[in-house]
């Protein structure tokens, strides 16, 4: 695919002091970030943190924004999406009963490039088939979109993005609502595209399955909490500020695992009580894993093990939406 017409030096995405929202509702405040060509970046945070809003701000789809957003060297303003950027929406937002076939959906990605009449030209069809074949859904072109599996559906919308020959690919929760096998396929596919030089930004709420495998993450909760390699960024402190919940980080053999601390402690507590009743010692199998988590070393009662009723009281404010 021809990339180069829009090539420019410097970062692909520059965000300087971005504050944005809908109506009177502020979703993101004072975000600074830059993403360079060929990066694969995950936006991580709880629901309502502003992950999708940040993607939409890059596309000029957030009605109110202050600060500066530049994509591929061009200033993004509300209502003016930057060229060279393709977007894959969350599958849940798609109307699956709409009468469209796979090829009809994919060709939408070329709506503004095809000739004025309704049917696609030979070149458009050739490009479409090449992309569908590459994504492994070449045989499904004439199927209705509802007849496909979750992974195939995700590929259809990825194909629609790719047929516009973008430099930057933005994906909203590409792995939510699909099974493990599909999730891995989608991630491998994105990894392949990234190796070919595509800059990719995706949102995800799956820390272990998705975010921990990405080379770079931005932790978001109403503002940018931290950014960097998940190996360095995912610390209990950052995760606490991002999610407003206690989490533990386990590092073993180069593997990174984030665990929700509360159920773990709750289970330990329950097990302890159970063992007590039976006159045994509770097993202490977790002791080695927690390195820098200070909360863990006290003995906990049940109330302490549960997350606080009002997380806002202790955690940074989780912005609406």
């Amino acid at each position, binding site marked *: 695919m021809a990339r180069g017409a829009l090539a420019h030096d410097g970062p692909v995405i520059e965000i300087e002091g971005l504050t944005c929202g809908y109506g009177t509702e502020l979703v993101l405040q004072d975000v600074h970030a830059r993403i360079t060509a060929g990066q694969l970046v995950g936006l991580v945070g709880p629901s309502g943190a502003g992950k999708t809003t940040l993607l939409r701000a890059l*596309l000029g789809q957030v009605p109110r924004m202050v600060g500066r957003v530049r994509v591929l060297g061009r200033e993004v303003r509300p209502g003016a999406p930057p060229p060279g950027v393709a977007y894959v929406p969350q599958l849940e937002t798609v109307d699956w009963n709409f009468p*469209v076939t796979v090829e009809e959906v994919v060709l939408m990605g070329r*709506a*503004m490039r*095809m000739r004025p009449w309704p049917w696609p030209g030979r070149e458009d069809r050739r490009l479409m088939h090449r992309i569908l074949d590459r994504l*492994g859904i070449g045989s499904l072109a004439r199927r209705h979109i509802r007849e496909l*599996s979750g*992974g195939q559906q995700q590929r259809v919308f990825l194909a629609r993005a790719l047929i516009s020959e973008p430099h930057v690919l933005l994906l909203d929760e590409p792995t939510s609502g699909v099974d493990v096998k599909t999730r891995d396929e989608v991630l491998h596919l994105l*990894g392949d595209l990234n190796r070919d030089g595509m800059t990719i930004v995706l949102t995800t709420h799956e820390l272990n399955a998705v975010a921990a495998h990405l080379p770079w993450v931005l932790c978001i909760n109403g503002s940018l909490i931290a950014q960097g390699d998940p190996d360095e960024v995912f610390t209990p402190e950052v995760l606490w500020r991002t999610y407003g919940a206690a989490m533990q980080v386990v590092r073993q053999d180069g593997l990174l695992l984030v665990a929700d601390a509360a159920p773990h402690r709750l289970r330990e507590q329950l097990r302890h009580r159970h063992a007590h009743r039976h006159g045994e010692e509770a097993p202490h199998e977790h002791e080695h894993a927690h390195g820098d988590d200070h909360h863990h070393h006290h003995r906990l009662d049940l109330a302490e093990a549960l997350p606080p009723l009002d997380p806002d009281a202790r955690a940074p404010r989780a912005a609406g939406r």
Partner: protein
Amino acid sequence: MPLDVLEPFHYDFFRHGLIAAALVGALCGLMGVYIVLRRMSYIGHGLSHAVFGGAVVSHLMGWNFYIGAGLWGFLSALLIDAAARRRRIGSDAAIGIITTSSFALGVALISRGRGFTRNFEAALFGNILGVTAADLWVIGTVAVAVAVFVFFAYKQLLFATFDPEVAPVYGVPSRLIDALFSLALAATIVASMNVVGVTLIAATIVIPPVTARLLSDRFSRVLLGSSALGAGIGVAGMYLSYHFNIASGASIVLLGAAVFMLALTYSATRRRSLPALAMRTARPASPPAPELLD
């Protein structure tokens, strides 16, 4: 006595009515696909009632029907749009208030002057005798204009209808497309009023696309099928209205409902048949991710 099937064709008014029914059927069928998929059926229904008020006002003022009713319809559409943006009201309630009050205005004005009862009935239920050569020109012009619009904006219109949030990201000028669509919708309703009637217009907009949807999953086929069904049902309905001496709008709608039931039965049996079921459930295995092959 053998029924003379060609008998009605001897009359000018019937030929006019037939051409009008075919054009209006195709026009409503074409626009109906987008109206139904954009979940605007209720707006179409409401707009036709609003236009009725404009029709009566322009009649009383001696304005040209199409200009008066068309302007009225366009203004109502803008008003509905503005009212629907206020979150506290909600678009369905906004449509209800604006269109029924406009309709009531028409009824109030008509009830003052006794002379309009005939026109009143025609406007409500459609009238085969009401179609003049001038009407035909207007209907034909609107049909051609809408067809040209849909032809050249086909891809953009499809994208903006399927995925209104994402279409602008791919450069589709969705505001312009939406505005042109509203204009086409108002023109369609004003042009169709005399033939089908205010109260039944919604059915001619909804029945053909829903029927075509039952028969195909492909957008281009649903669009062509709906237009063809609309035209066919219009012509056949007109013909039946002559032979059974019933209001043209009513016969077109009743015939449309019958065709819809047929399509529903057909698609239900087709979907339940075993090969079709197997086709729907069998999915080709997706190839393993490249990494897994290493």
